[in-house]
């Protein structure tokens, strides 16, 4: 009965049927398309390597890399955990640091004027160059690794959040003033929600950068006390000319990056879908 009704409705309105079909196709393509492209890329890589007879020590084929991943899985998995741990801690710190600084700057224009240049300096200073100083100042290797990764990741979050805090609607600002909101209330109830879409974009950039930061930190700070991460494995494999393994570690870093990005995208979607233009679903 209900089925017949639906069918009748569809028959009565072919356009509506077409739209429903388009929606279904899209929902399906959202997952299959990236996978299909992935398969194509891997296939292309495979063909490129085999047809041109590229030696495995220059560019190993996907089959070989997959074999290595399977064979060395226990080691690689441990390395991934180590790297993921540093990256996630660094991201958390970047959120606290970048978001916190943005809030601080928004609370006091004087602070912003005085200290924003130093945030820029921190961003542009090559970690490789100041890592020794960090090592001198901070005893613990894990902490110094975190500091390095944090330096790499915090700026996009700071910058985007600052912009977001400034973008709150001026009429709403006026409203808050009239109702005698304290600076703190205005921040919490008005500016932070307004900044959310900007912050989340910064977060997604910061997510990737914190992973990069973790890798760089491992390069320059080393693994003492933190176990062997993927970066160390890359270095070791590259030194030992074990190129397939190096690619395996690289692939896992990429995977980790995509996973972090997707998790943050999902978070962003959940937080914004009810109200923000960029996320609200509309009829086409």
């Amino acid at each position, binding site marked *: 009965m209900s089925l017949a009704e639906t069918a009748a409705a569809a028959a009565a309105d072919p356009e509506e049927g077409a739209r429903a079909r388009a929606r279904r196709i899209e929902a399906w393509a959202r997952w299959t398309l990236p996978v299909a492209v992935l398969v194509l890329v891997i296939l292309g890589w495979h063909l490129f390597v085999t047809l041109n007879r590229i030696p495995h*020590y220059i560019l190993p084929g996907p089959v070989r890399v997959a074999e290595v991943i399977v064979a060395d899985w226990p080691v690689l998995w441990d390395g991934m955990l180590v790297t993921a741990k540093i990256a996630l801690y660094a991201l958390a710190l970047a959120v606290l640091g970048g978001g916190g600084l943005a809030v601080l700057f928004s609370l006091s224009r004087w602070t912003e004027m005085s200290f924003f240049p130093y945030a820029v300096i921190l961003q542009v200073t090559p970690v490789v160059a100041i890592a*020794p100083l960090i090592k001198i100042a901070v005893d613990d290797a894990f902490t110094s690794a975190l500091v390095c990764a944090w330096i790499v990741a915090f700026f996009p979050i700071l910058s985007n959040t600052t912009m977001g805090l400034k973008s709150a609607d001026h009429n709403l600002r006026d409203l808050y003033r009239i109702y005698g909101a304290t600076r703190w209330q205005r921040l919490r109830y008005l500016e932070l929600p307004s900044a959310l879409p900007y912050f989340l974009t910064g977060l997604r950039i910061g997510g990737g950068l914190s992973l990069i930061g973790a890798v760089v930190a491992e390069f320059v700070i080393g693994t*003492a*006390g933190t176990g062997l991460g993927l970066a160390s494995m890359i270095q070791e494999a590259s030194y*030992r000319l074990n190129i397939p393994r190096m690619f395996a570690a690289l692939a896992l870093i990429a995977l980790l990056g995509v996973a972090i990005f997707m998790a943050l995208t999902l978070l962003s979607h959940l937080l914004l879908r009810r109200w923000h233009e960029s996320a609200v679903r509309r009829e086409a």
Partner: protein
Amino acid sequence: EKVIFGTNWLAQAEHGGFYQSVADGTYAECGLEVEILPGGPQVNNRAMMLAGRIDFHMGGNLLQPFSAVEQGIPVVAVAAIFQKEPQVIIAHPGMAETFEDLKKLTLLIGENGYQSFYQWMIKAYGFTREQRRPYTFNPAPFLADKNTAMQGYLSSEPYLIKKEAGFEPKVFLLADHGFSTYSTLIETMADTIEKRPAVVQCFVDGSIKGWYRYLYGDPSAANELIKAANPEMTDDKIAYAIEKMKEYGIVDSGDALTLGIGAMTEARVKDFFDKMVAAGVVSPDVDWKKAFTTRFVNKGVGMELKP
């Protein structure tokens, strides 16, 4: 014919012989136009050779040719310019009298060193992974803390520390404590040996002659090239390096005294291989003989240039 030789560091006196032959036309005599491509801390010129973008590469020690064999990569060492690797461990004065004393210190070791000689130090002397920190070619953390020691290059760090920090550090040459590898190897692809043996021979011979002339003749032309490629290089630095190379017999000692610079012997390679197998750095299955060939050396070339 144009060939490219990639070194593994910025231009310095330790590359002097090669620059010498470029400068005085020794390579050109047998028809080679050689370009020297300097390396650096993060630069990987070996990958360029594997990809066929350069012809020869300067290897640090024998471990990498062993790795190449293990991975089925046809890289072969055709000459060993340094009989001793100038790799040193440097400590603050009074902190370590013997090599064993270093075990009490935190060691700053770069990634390459960690993967090679440090593994041997672990096995042969009982150093630990935990006491090692990465060395990013910045000695400041060493200077800041007396309880650290760091890796170094015989002719570089000790000189700098003396000049800048004003104290004479304690220096341990690894080669004198059993790390018996050759160094400053000329590596090339098996393919090149097979298809262009004349080019290989020419490059090896030219390099050997260059080293004799650099050490015993007038190095000024080579030094000009080095300073041009690396503006930070100074005359006194170069002079110090040449002096140390001579003092420690880095280039011209042992087999080289009889077979000529560049000499390699199977016995010596096997000795090192066995040590590395014992240290767990290299798998015992590796066919170590494939890692090098004596076909182009041990001929006493250029010995007449020695005064």
